[in-house]
């Protein structure tokens, strides 16, 4: 049923439909609306979960870790500094192969303090072993939660997943969102029944330490699981499409790609602005297209290489930067296109909530076509 609702409310409703047994989160802007909504659902008996009101994000994810290991479906949400405070726990959750799902309302990292959007927070956790999904709009943000649980809990995957959507730009925006029914959600997402859990009837040890004789193999297996999760993502996305008409089987999505000479690569809500700009430029006869990355971990290198095969210029928009190097997406795209001879230019854009306008996208296209890149877009030179 189509409802006009705030992004955070839509996400909270999707989480409710996924029936987590334990929710643990700590308030932080701009994620707060989601967890407030969930707390209200618990208070009114609409969600049969234990909501643990922790004293920090660090404990939020630690409590989820315990609850997940004990056999419950768990949920948390955070952003920015809160995610940074979870850093240590994130690696631990992935290492213990616990299928926790967490929403990230993407926000910049301080200092300077900024409550506004970019994707530095979740990108900085790209090496932690979590699957990472990025949503373009609130429909996608909502749907990705069902898919995230389905993939994370798949016995062949057993990994945690982050569903990332841009703070404020999506989290606080009202859009029409089609919500599925509880009955359909239950059909799509069966009950969580892990093969192993903390259970007195069958005692096992979780989180033991590994000597150099074993550690390397543990890491190999996690890496393999993250990479192979692509198969489960495709299957879960296709099944979702079959049931609800919105197909998420692809890890990347093209827009006006077929004959595009200049291709923009982007992630998240910025893709909407890029699509509008492409529509305008197409009318002017410019052969411009978009490759949207929906899944950043596992990174779909082969899909990216295939999609960009015919491009003359590739312009990557990064709402993050690995300081001293480049944006994270550009580094991945360059790796994917290595040896192809296709030039890849990186543009750092929209950090800390700086508005990204259609004219910025036009500027990026013009720069890429001139062979200029690896730079910030929209710098206010007068304050430098």
């Amino acid at each position, binding site marked *: 049923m189509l409802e006009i609702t705030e992004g955070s409310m839509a996400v909270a409703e999707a989480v409710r439909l996924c029936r987590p047994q334990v929710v643990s989160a700590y308030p932080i802007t701009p994620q707060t609306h989601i967890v407030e909504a969930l707390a209200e659902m618990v208070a009114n008996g609409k969600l049969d979960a*234990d909501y643990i009101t*922790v004293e920090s994000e660090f404990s939020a994810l630690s409590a989820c870790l315990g609850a997940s290991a004990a056999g419950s479906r768990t949920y948390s949400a955070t952003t920015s500094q809160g995610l940074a405070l979870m850093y240590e726990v994130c690696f631990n959750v992935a290492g213990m192969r616990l299928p926790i799902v967490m929403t990230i309302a993407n926000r910049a990292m301080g200092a300077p303090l900024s409550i506004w959007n970019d994707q530095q927070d979740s990108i900085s956790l790209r090496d932690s072993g979590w699957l990472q999904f990025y949503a373009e709009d609130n429909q996608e943000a909502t749907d990705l939660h069902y898919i995230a649980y389905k993939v994370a809990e798949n016995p062949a995957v057993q990994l945690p997943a982050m569903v990332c959507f841009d703070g404020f730009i999506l989290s606080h925006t009202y859009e029409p969102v089609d919500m599925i029914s509880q009955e359909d959600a239950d059909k799509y997402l069966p009950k969580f029944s892990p093969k192993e859990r903390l259970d007195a009837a069958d005692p096992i040890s979780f989180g033991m*330490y590994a000597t150099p004789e074993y550690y390397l193999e543990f890491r190999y297996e996690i890496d393999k699981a993250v990479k192979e999760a692509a198969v489960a993502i495709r299957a879960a996305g296709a099944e979702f499409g079959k049931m609800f008409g919105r197909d998420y089987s692809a890890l990347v999505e093209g827009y006006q790609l077929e004959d595009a000479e200049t291709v923009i690569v982007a992630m998240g809500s910025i893709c909407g602005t890029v699509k509008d700009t492409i529509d305008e430029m197409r009318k002017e006869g410019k052969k411009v297209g978009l490759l949207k990355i929906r899944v950043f971990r596992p990174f779909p290198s082969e899909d990216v290489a295939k999609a960009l095969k015919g491009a003359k210029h590739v312009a990557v928009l990064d709402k993050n930067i690995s300081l001293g190097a480049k944006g994270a997406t550009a580094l991945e795209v360059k790796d994917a296109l290595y040896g192809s001879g296709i030039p890849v230019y990186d543009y750092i854009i929209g950090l800390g909530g700086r508005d990204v306008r259609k004219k910025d996208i036009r500027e990026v296209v013009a720069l890429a076509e001139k062979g200029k890149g690896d730079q910030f877009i929209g710098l206010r030179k007068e304050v430098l």
Partner: protein
Amino acid sequence: MADKSCELFDAGHRACGGCGAALAARLMLKAAGPESIVVSSTGCMEVFSTPYPETAWKVPWIHSLFENASAVASGIESSLKKQGRKEKVIVMAGDGATFDIGMLCISGAFERGHDITYICYDNEAYMNTGIQRSGATPYDASTTTSPAGSQSFGNKRPKKDMPAILAAHGSPYVATASIAYPNDLLQKVEKALNTVGPTYVQIHVPCCTGWGFEGEQTIAIAKLAIETGLWVNYEMVDGKVTKAKKVVRKPVEEYLKTQKRFRHLFKPKRQDAEIEAIQALADKNAEKYGIDIKIAKKE
């Protein structure tokens, strides 16, 4: 009642001979029994008991990080509640994980009132990383980060009063125990487990490697700590001390002399002022908990 014949902490772990913490784990599990889930912090016990693929734990056991055991336990308790399961949730953490780095998490878990029992095995320093001082290290103990030297007598601060902090959180049952008094320890752990809400038992566990004594002396030294009043075994119910073990006190130096960590108080020369300061701490304990047995002198 605790089944004393029950052995859920297996032999073959890698603790030092004479490790007080290993004994505490074994005793604790006798009181807890098999319907338990144990959460360990990073530390000696985690390392000596679970080198993959071996484990000494015959109950379900989990280790996540150094500082988050109480938050992990909160999540487990919450999950069990939703599943209608009845296992007891027990944290087993060292003093560094409890007094220092885990303070945020333990405060949160106790304030929220989870039904968990937190057991701190207190060996009074960071032993796993090589004997560095913690908030539980006693006054004047020499550790690798509070070494005694020409300008220092070792650790400059007395031990943090962790049981009082947790009692102030509204914990219904807080107790201290010692491996030198196993029956008392078993009873306290059992009582903590059978009390609804977050409960705390802090167990004094001498560390032969960290404190500097021979492994066969562990129990004797634990006993001396009680007999000198430097460690008091007591119980607090709803924030009030209801019971404390009474002793005929011995002078503190009988305890201090047994351990290398206090050797600088006697060699190269005896430091009377420092020994007096430590005696004053024991006297304060004795007064606070009323542990002195007064022997009536015969005329």
